């Protein structure tokens, strides 16, 4: 009956029914729900905490982990440098080094004290006014762009202006030491070319992002390029790395490229071409040296040349110096092509070196066109046709053979074929299909007119004479094993042709006496061609003097081809302008490679006037 007692029941603890006091004075009359509310609120609070904990620990982990990572995690880039380019003796021809791009936040920098800005300008190698002008112009642009009601000043921090790129590390350190606000450094790579203009046409150059733009840099981009890796680390408050966290992506360093070039021969070729261009006041000159046994390009020189580090800044007509005349220019080779026609005649058994041919009085008419020699040679043999470079003799040999055979030989030695030596901009040259050849064309083609080749194609084709009649692929990279050749003419024919080519240089009537080298036997063929401008021969005549030859004749080691473009003084025939360059390059190259001399002639006396020569 307690419940009905009413007043008494209030003094009893609800849960156990224990009376606290028997004194009625102490009876507090609280409504029974209040303690329940308190109890409920307490439990609810605990439950809320528990749910929150579960929420943080179990469900919304990502956000917190990200925030934590932001505070102690860092992703470091593991740099991968671009591979070096080296010559065959491992000498560095191109190498990348880390540099800094300096960027600035205009409005922060402008607030810096004047003397600091002056110091910065001095380090960046620009007048202070220019630096200030740059910053102010940029800031003005930014201010103009921003809407007037835009109060978000923080956006200024996003505005970066590049002050100077490719700043070398020691300068970059000095800039950092100035402790300027608003300076940002970004890692960049700069390519160094220690040999400068001597090899620039082979190596090419890179853009500001260190990506190849020309030459081997472009051709071998994927080989040279490094792939940077990354690693995740945990850092302490001061930025020291405490431990690795997570996976490491290994960087892949760019691989080194070993070229076939020989720096010494390259320098020799370059300086001799330079001399020749200056001496004959020519527009340009080029030379290539091939290794007969391996098909490696030992030297490839062009003049005028360019400094790789300045190449990017060249504009308009100045970019002409980037032209690699050896590979990207095709020209009518002229008489340097005669040996191929004559070799074909001998190879098919139609002619022997001693076969007599009547070249008459020096003029020979085919239908309505006349071919001429420099003078009437009369009845001469095949060997003398090469020695004296008779157009008529070569034409007669050519016309006695089917056009298809000539075309096949030209094609086999690579004329008119798209080159496969992996060099950007390589030209195929032009050999028209034999079915459309008219007799006069077949005749002129036999002495190198109406056909166009590049100097490198010409040099490579001469390999068939320097080797025993087979042709091998060329390589700009060092080769370890000798390549397999394809037989084009019989070894016997190649040997006979070598003897003939030697008479061109050392014979009584040879057209290339200036190609003689003291101590060595040399052989080759001169060529003089009219330049074709806009599809017709240029008037007044512009010439290309060329010479393709090999040394030493007893066992050819190098094939060297030289071309002098538009010589304007001191002669224009191949025998006058290109042959001496050939001799100089060959003599120095042989000496530098310690090739034993194969001739006892040590004094070269060349008659000053060797007279006109055929094209």
């Amino acid at each position: 009956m307690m419940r009905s007692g009413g007043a008494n029941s209030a003094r009893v603890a609800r849960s156990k029914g224990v009376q606290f006091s028997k004194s009625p004075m102490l009876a507090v009359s609280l409504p029974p729900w209040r303690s329940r509310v308190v109890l409920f609120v307490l439990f609810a609070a605990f439950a809320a905490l528990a749910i929150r904990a579960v929420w943080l620990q179990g469900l919304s982990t990502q956000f917190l982990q990200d925030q934590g990572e932001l505070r102690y995690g860092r992703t470091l880039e593991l740099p991968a440098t671009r591979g070096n380019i080296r010559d065959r003796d491992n000498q560095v021809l191109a190498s990348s080094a880390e540099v800094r791009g300096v960027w600035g936040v205009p409005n922060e920098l402008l607030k810096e004290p004047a003397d600091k800005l002056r110091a910065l300008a001095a380090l960046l190698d620009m007048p202070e006014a220019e630096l200030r002008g740059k910053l102010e112009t940029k800031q003005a642009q930014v201010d103009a762009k921003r809407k007037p009601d835009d109060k978000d000043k923080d956006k200024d921090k996003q505005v970066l202006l590049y002050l100077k790129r490719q700043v070398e590390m020691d300068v970059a350190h000095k800039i950092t030491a100035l402790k300027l606000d608003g300076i940002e450094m970004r890692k960049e790579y700069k390519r160094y070319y220690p040999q400068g203009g001597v090899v620039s046409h082979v190596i090419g150059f890179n853009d500001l992002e260190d990506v190849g733009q020309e030459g081997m840099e472009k051709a071998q981009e994927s080989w040279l390029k490094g792939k940077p890796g990354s690693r995740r680390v945990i850092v302490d408050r001061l930025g020291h790395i405490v431990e690795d966290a997570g996976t490491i992506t290994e960087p892949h360093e760019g691989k080194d490229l070993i070229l076939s070039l020989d720096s010494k021969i390259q320098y020799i070729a370059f300086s001799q071409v330079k001399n020749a261009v200056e001496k004959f006041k020519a527009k340009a000159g080029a030379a290539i040296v091939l290794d007969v046994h391996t098909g490696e390009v030992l030297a490839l020189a062009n003049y005028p040349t360019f400094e790789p580090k300045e190449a990017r800044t060249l504009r308009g007509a100045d970019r002409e110096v980037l032209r690699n005349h050896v590979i990207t220019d095709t020209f009518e080779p002229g008489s340097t092509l005669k040996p191929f026609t004559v070799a074909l005649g001998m190879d098919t058994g139609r002619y022997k070196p001693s076969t007599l041919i009547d070249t008459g009085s020096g003029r020979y008419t085919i239908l309505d066109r006349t071919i001429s020699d420099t003078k009437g040679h009369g009845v001469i043999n095949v060997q003398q046709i090469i020695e004296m470079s008779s157009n008529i003799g070569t034409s007669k040999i050519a016309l006695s053979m089917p056009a298809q055979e000539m075309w096949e030989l030209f094609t086999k030695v690579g004329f008119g074929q798209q080159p496969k030596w992996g060099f950007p901009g390589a030209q195929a040259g032009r050999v028209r299909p034999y079915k459309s050849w008219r007799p006069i064309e077949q005749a002129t083609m036999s002495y190198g007119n109406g056909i166009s080749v590049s100097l490198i194609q010409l040099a490579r084709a001469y390999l068939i004479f320097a080797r025993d009649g087979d042709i091998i692929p060329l390589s700009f990279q060092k080769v370890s094993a000798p390549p397999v050749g394809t037989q084009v003419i019989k070894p016997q024919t190649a040997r006979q042709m070598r003897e003939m080519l030697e008479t061109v240089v050392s014979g009584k009537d040879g057209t290339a006496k200036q190609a003689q080298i003291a101590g060595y036997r040399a052989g080759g063929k001169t060529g003089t061609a009219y330049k074709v401008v806009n599809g017709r021969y240029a008037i007044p005549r512009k010439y290309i003097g060329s010479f393709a030859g090999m040394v030493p004749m007893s066992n050819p080691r190098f094939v060297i081809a030289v071309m002098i473009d538009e010589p304007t003084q001191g002669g224009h025939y191949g025998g006058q302008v290109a042959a001496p360059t050939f001799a100089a390059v060959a003599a120095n190259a042989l000496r530098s490679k310690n090739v034993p001399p194969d001739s006892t002639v040590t004094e070269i006396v060349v008659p000053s006037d060797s007279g006109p020569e055929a094209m």
Partner: protein
Amino acid sequence: MSFKINAVLAALLVGCALSLVNAQYQARHLFISLERAQRQARQLDVDWAQLQLDQSTLGKHGRIEEIARRDLNMTPLTANRTQYLTEGEQ
């Protein structure tokens, strides 16, 4: 009995905890020296590349020739001033 086991376990626990601290400390130390060594290796790589570059720059044939001509008064070799020796010849 159970008190003894507890005491031993507690001592073990403390021991393990201390050795963990020590191991962590050692690991940090080693890690830092590894980092330092790697940084040094990278720096040496950079120096090596720089030295090779310098070698190529200073060993440029054009430079050698210029110095030989100008400072050392040397002239290019010619065949008529060369004596060739053949091995085994009297």
